[in-house]
C-alpha cells in the first residue's frame, strides 16, 4: 500500500474514532434529554463517516477499481440519522420531557423571553431568577 494512502487512511480513522468518542461523552454528560439527543446524532455520523472514508481508501488501493460498499452505508446513515432523531425528539416533546430549567414548553425557556413577557413565565408557576443568577435547576 502506498505511504500516502496509508497516512490518509490512518488520520481519517483517528479523526472518526475521536468524533465517535466525543459524541458518546456528550450523550453521557449533557444535562437534559434534548441536548443529549444533539450529541450523538451529529458526532457519531461524522465519526462513522470518517471511518467509512478510511475503509474506502484502504479497499480502493488494495483491490483494482473503486470500492463503493462503504458509500452505501454512509449514504444510508446520513439519511436515517436525522429521521430517527426527529422521531425521538417528537416523542419526547409529546411526552413533555422537561428542558434544562425544569420547564416543559420551549417557548417558556428564559432565553426565549423578552422582558415584557416575563409575566408568562411567572404565570406558568416558575420563578425567574434576578439577572446574573443561574437559572433554576441549572446547577444539576
Amino acid at each position: 500500500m502506498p505511504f500516502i494512502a496509508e497516512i490518509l487512511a490512518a488520520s481519517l480513522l483517528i479523526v472518526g474514532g475521536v468524533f465517535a468518542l466525543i459524541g458518546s461523552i456528550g450523550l453521557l454528560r449533557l444535562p437534559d434529554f434534548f441536548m443529549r439527543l444533539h450529541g450523538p446524532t451529529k458526532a457519531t455520523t461524522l465519526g462513522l463517516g470518517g471511518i467509512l472514508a478510511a475503509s474506502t481508501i484502504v479497499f480502493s488501493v488494495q483491490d483494482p477499481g473503486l470500492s463503493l460498499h462503504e458509500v452505501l452505508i454512509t449514504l444510508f446513515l446520513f439519511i436515517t440519522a436525522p429521521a430517527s432523531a426527529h422521531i425521538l425528539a417528537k416523542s419526547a416533546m409529546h411526552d413533555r420531557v422537561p428542558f434544562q430549567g425544569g420547564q416543559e414548553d420551549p417557548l417558556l425557556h428564559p432565553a426565549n423571553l423578552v422582558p415584557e413577557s416575563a409575566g408568562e413565565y411567572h404565570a406558568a408557576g416558575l420563578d425567574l431568577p434576578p439577572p446574573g443568577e443561574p437559572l433554576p435547576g441549572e446547577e444539576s
Partner: protein
Amino acid sequence: MILSTALSITTTLILVAVLLNLARLVIGPRTIDRVVALDTMYINTIGLIVLLGIQQRNQIAFEAALLIAMMGFVGTVALGKFYLRGDIIE
C-alpha cells in the same frame, strides 16, 4: 504499520464510547434516554464491524454493517413510535 496502529487506537476509542453508551443505558432516567443510548450503541457497533473488516481485509463485514444499520434504524423508529403512541402500526 501505521495503519495497524491507527486501527488499534480507533478500536480502543470506540470501545470506550460503547462503554459510555452502556453507562447512559443503565442510568438513563427515562425510557426515551435509553432508546437514544441504544441507537448510539448501534452506530458505534457499525464502526467496530467496519474496523474489523479493514483489519481482516474482508469485504463481507460490510454486508453485516449495512444489515445492522438497517435493523438499528427500524428498531429506533419502532421504539420511538411505541413511546409516542403506545402502538407501532395503527
